[in-house]
């Protein structure tokens, strides 16, 4: 469904992604593991069009989408939930959802948008309760729910999730991961997930990639990654000085 071929990306002078190649098949949950600054977030941003690609190609359902604008990619069914709960804080929960469904409004009108919002409320009853509250006054977990709900409003086929558990309490993290697993099962959603909480991510994922200083160094089934000593190493380092190539 999604294929990256030798993608490179720069942030100013910093070469962040170095020939990243990976793929996500329809209906899968794929996760990316790696230290901070390894290039996980940048990978998602190049896919969703927020970050320019320099060298390499990106395909979505066999159509080349390298360099397309985020506005266009949302229309194609790629929804990106950026890290750090990017909601419109001074606007109400309902307004946030409306904006999430901007393209539905544009193509099918206000009535359809309303129906879609009701459907989303069915999935997130807590948001219905808080529909008139300012989004900025929600708790961290509720804000994270809202960002996911906003992304779902555009009726995506592929969901890019960036650190949904950041700064949340363990119980809430559990809920969110349960939700992601449900979305995959019920809505046939394909998910590319970035997580620092490697265990939680690997529990629901089918496959995983390990990325280190902008290079993919390992691709493996999620089960195998969970027991992999090297994954642990990626986070805690090890004593022998051996550089992976």
């Amino acid at each position: 469904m999604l294929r990256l071929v030798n993608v490179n990306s720069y942030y100013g002078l910093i070469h962040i992604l170095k020939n990243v190649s990976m793929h996500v098949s329809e209906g899968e949950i794929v996760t990316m593991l790696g230290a901070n600054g390894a290039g996980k977030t940048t990978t998602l941003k190049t896919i969703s069009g927020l970050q320019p690609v320099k060298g390499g190609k990106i395909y979505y359902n066999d159509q080349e989408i390298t360099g397309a604008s985020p506005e266009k990619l949302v229309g194609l069914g790629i929804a990106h939930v950026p890290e750090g709960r990017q909601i419109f804080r001074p606007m109400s929960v309902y307004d946030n959802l409306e904006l999430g469904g901007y393209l539905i409004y544009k193509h099918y009108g206000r009535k359809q948008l309303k129906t879609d919002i009701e459907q989303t409320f069915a999935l997130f009853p807590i948001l219905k309760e808080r529909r008139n509250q300012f989004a900025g006054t929600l708790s961290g977990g509720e804000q994270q729910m809202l960002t996911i709900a906003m992304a779902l409003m555009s009726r995506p086929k592929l969901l890019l999730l960036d650190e949904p558990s950041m700064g949340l309490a363990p119980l809430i993290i559990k809920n969110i991961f349960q939700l992601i697993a449900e979305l995959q099962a019920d809505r046939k959603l394909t998910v590319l997930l970035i997580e620092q909480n490697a265990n939680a991510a690997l529990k629901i994922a089918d496959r995983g990639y390990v990325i280190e200083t902008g290079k993919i160094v390992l691709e493996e089934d999620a089960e195998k990654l969970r027991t992999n000593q090297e994954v642990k190493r990626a986070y805690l380092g090890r004593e022998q000085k051996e550089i992976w190539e």
Partner: protein
Amino acid sequence: MSNSILELEVLCKNFGGVVAVSNLSLRIEKGFITSLIGPNGAGKTTIFNLVTGFLEPTSGHIRFSGRIVKHMKPHTIASIGIGRTFQNVQIFPKMSVLENIMVGRHLRSRAGILSSSVLPPFLRKEEKLIRAEAEKQLHFLDLSEFARVPAGSLPLGNQRMLEIARALALEPKLLLLDEPASGLNARETIAMGELIEKIKQMNITVLLVEHDMELVMDISDYVAVINFGKLIAEGPPVEIQENKDVIAAYLGE
């Protein structure tokens, strides 16, 4: 640990309602390399900013060489012997590499705005001294070939080196390095590790924030782990690697 150069005493910092650092107490031993590690948003850079005067603590104290540091602007803190680098390299891109380091000699020279404008012949000696010291620093870091190049055109690895050279020109007692290896490749990271060890041999205490665990575990004498603004573990690298809390903070559950 009586021989500490920097002590944080129940330090707290709130931003609006958000607690970035809470009741943090930590001693940094003189002459060693101490690393601060922890997940994103744990408060490491905030601690750097508190120590170097870019932020004021909400409560608690910072003690440097036994003296309480309070209400000091960053430039005063620099003058008492604390140097730092930044997470996103902050070099002066339009100035040459040599000039960048010459700025580092600011505190070791005197000339003011009036004397500089009208009396340059009298200042030649001082200017020469600044230049000589800066060139020495360049040589130490193997950057001599780039002396006249605008700093902005250097590759990132060299920019990070340059930033450290500039901070060393200050002749600090304590050097704070904020993710010096981020964005560097494997070879550059090893070079960075060697450089940091060299700095330690110059009898400069190093406080390091870094995400590259291999580098951290390799060169640190002491590691402090922070999560949600709190200290969750401290000790030598070997202990930290085995620590259950640390593994939980990094790997979850």
